[in-house]
């Protein structure tokens, strides 16, 4: 069984919409987190101090649909990212004790091949006309199957409510022709919203620009339509390996192996039949 499928392109269907999050210009202001909570009316989920740099949000979850990660590293190279700066340009440092700060606003990836959607038994999760992935809260019965299915650890069940929640890519705003709240609030255009094909072109240009400036560590994540999830509707420009930001390095949609899974279940079921038959053959007792 294959899960590969491309949504049928009807005339008048809107283009696939998505996010390109360029973490090289993220300043860690968390305006996206706040705007998301406000617009979507998401309840608070604790005021925990984590001790992880400036990140007290900790992770995406049922009540956190944007999460800004803060990574502190020994500085290895200083590169002009084209950001406004004060003071003299930083010298390339090695053992100077200076740190490099990586900030990245994480979000649901709205996968082309979305495991959460594939495994949802009620049909509560569905693909919208913008090819985003959304939960219908009036259908979800809180079975929780989507939670371990997601290769990014995005979707979760909200304690006390019992249903699963995640980013809707502001489905209500998209239907009204508006920009999602996080992208609207982002002051540096680190979060860019638009047609996915256009965002991919823009990301390629930005990557070339950074590579030309010598920032070889820059890379796109989730940009490739041939990756294990068929490419992400929300993809990123990162300045280090994905796992440093808490992202899986090579995620694969679990249902890619579903054919093999059902085949082995079928063989094992046949083995149970065989055991049953064999148990009654021969001896009378």
């Amino acid at each position, binding site marked *: 069984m294959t899960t590969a499928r491309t949504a049928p392109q009807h005339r008048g269907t809107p283009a696939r919409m998505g996010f390109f999050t360029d973490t090289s210009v993220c300043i860690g202001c968390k305006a996206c987190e706040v705007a998301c909570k406000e617009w979507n009316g998401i309840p608070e989920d604790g005021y925990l101090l984590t001790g992880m740099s400036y990140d007290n949000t900790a*992770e995406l979850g049922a009540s956190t649909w944007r999460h800004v990660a803060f990574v502190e590293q020994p500085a290895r190279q200083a590169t002009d990212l084209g950001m406004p700066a004060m003071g003299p340009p930083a010298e390339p440092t090695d053992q100077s004790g200076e740190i490099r700060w990586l900030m990245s606003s994480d979000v649901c990836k709205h996968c082309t091949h979305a495991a959460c959607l594939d495994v949802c038994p009620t049909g509560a999760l569905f693909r919208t006309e913008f090819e985003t992935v959304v939960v219908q809260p009036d259908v979800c019965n809180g079975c929780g199957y989507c*939670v*371990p299915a997601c290769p990014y650890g995005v979707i979760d069940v909200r304690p006390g409510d019992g249903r699963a929640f995640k980013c809707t890519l502001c489905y209500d705003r998209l239907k009204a022709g508006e920009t999602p709240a996080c992208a609207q609030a982002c002051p540096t255009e680190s979060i860019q919203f638009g047609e996915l094909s256009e965002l991919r072109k823009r990301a390629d240009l930005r990557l070339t620009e950074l590579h030309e400036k010598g920032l070889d560590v820059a890379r796109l994540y989730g940009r490739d339509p041939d990756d294990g999830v068929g490419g992400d509707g929300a993809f990123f420009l990162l300045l280090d390996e994905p796992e440093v930001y808490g992202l899986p390095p090579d995620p694969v949609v679990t249902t890619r192996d579903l054919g093999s899974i059902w085949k082995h279940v079928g*063989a094992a079921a046949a083995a*149970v039949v065989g055991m049953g038959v064999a148990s009654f053959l021969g001896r009378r007792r």
Partner: protein
Amino acid sequence: MSPRGEPTVVPEPEFRSYYGRPILKQPTWKTPDVPLYLFLGGLAGCSAVLAEGASLTGRPELERVARLAAAGGAAAGTVALVHDLGRPERFLNMLRVIKPTSPLSVGSFVLASFSGLAGAAAASQVTGLLPRLGRLAGAGAAALGPTLATYTAALVADTAVPAWHEAHRELPFVFGGSGAEAAGGLAMMLTPLDQAGPARRMALAGAAIEIVAAEAILRRGLVTEPYRLGRPGRLMNAARAATAVASAATVLAGGRSRLLSALAGATYVAASVATRFGIFEAGLESARDPKYTVVPQRERGRAAAAR
């Protein structure tokens, strides 16, 4: 030695992470609801097969015990599944659509049909009413039983949880074998010796398949390490030892001593429970530690680059 005191199987691999936090979400499935359901589904499905065989070969005591086990296991399993839902009152939404891509959707239809048929067969058996329809229902339950006993492996394997997903080839056989072991074991406990022969043979065959398939999982390297370590490792080891002891007792004295047969049967049932809890908890552990997500994905990337 690891911090937990068990010998480590492979050297701790180097990997980077975000403050050591998990990448995957912990499954929100509750303990004991879900591991118990995995056990009950196996018990019920294989008991239905046993009941049909007993009916066809004229073993009324074995048939009665197995029919009740099939119906009781399915009913209790359904209760456990509904209780596990975040919104139990919406359990009927499970039957709202049929999705082959969702083992839980397929399984809900299998479980609903099986429960109805096994329940009808058991009711007819106990009351003596509508014997022909009861027989027909029993045959239907036996036809669905093997699927009910093994689809639960697809349920856990069709996730991003490394220890479950990477074992997707072996888990259906572990589950089918463990279910046969449980059904055979329960029937050994409750059936007179002269009718329990098929139950003993089913338990022995199930035990053999389960042990071989579980051993094959352990050979899959780092991702299946959680099956060996900590609490899940202890559960899996206890299950394997109990299965071996019960099998030895069954072979040596299963057909002669009612007491030993019943004790061996109870040990089989306990081993099947331990296996399900061990597999469930190994999955939780593999989702908790980012090592099991990052390292295999990195290795896969390197292997792909080398090709």
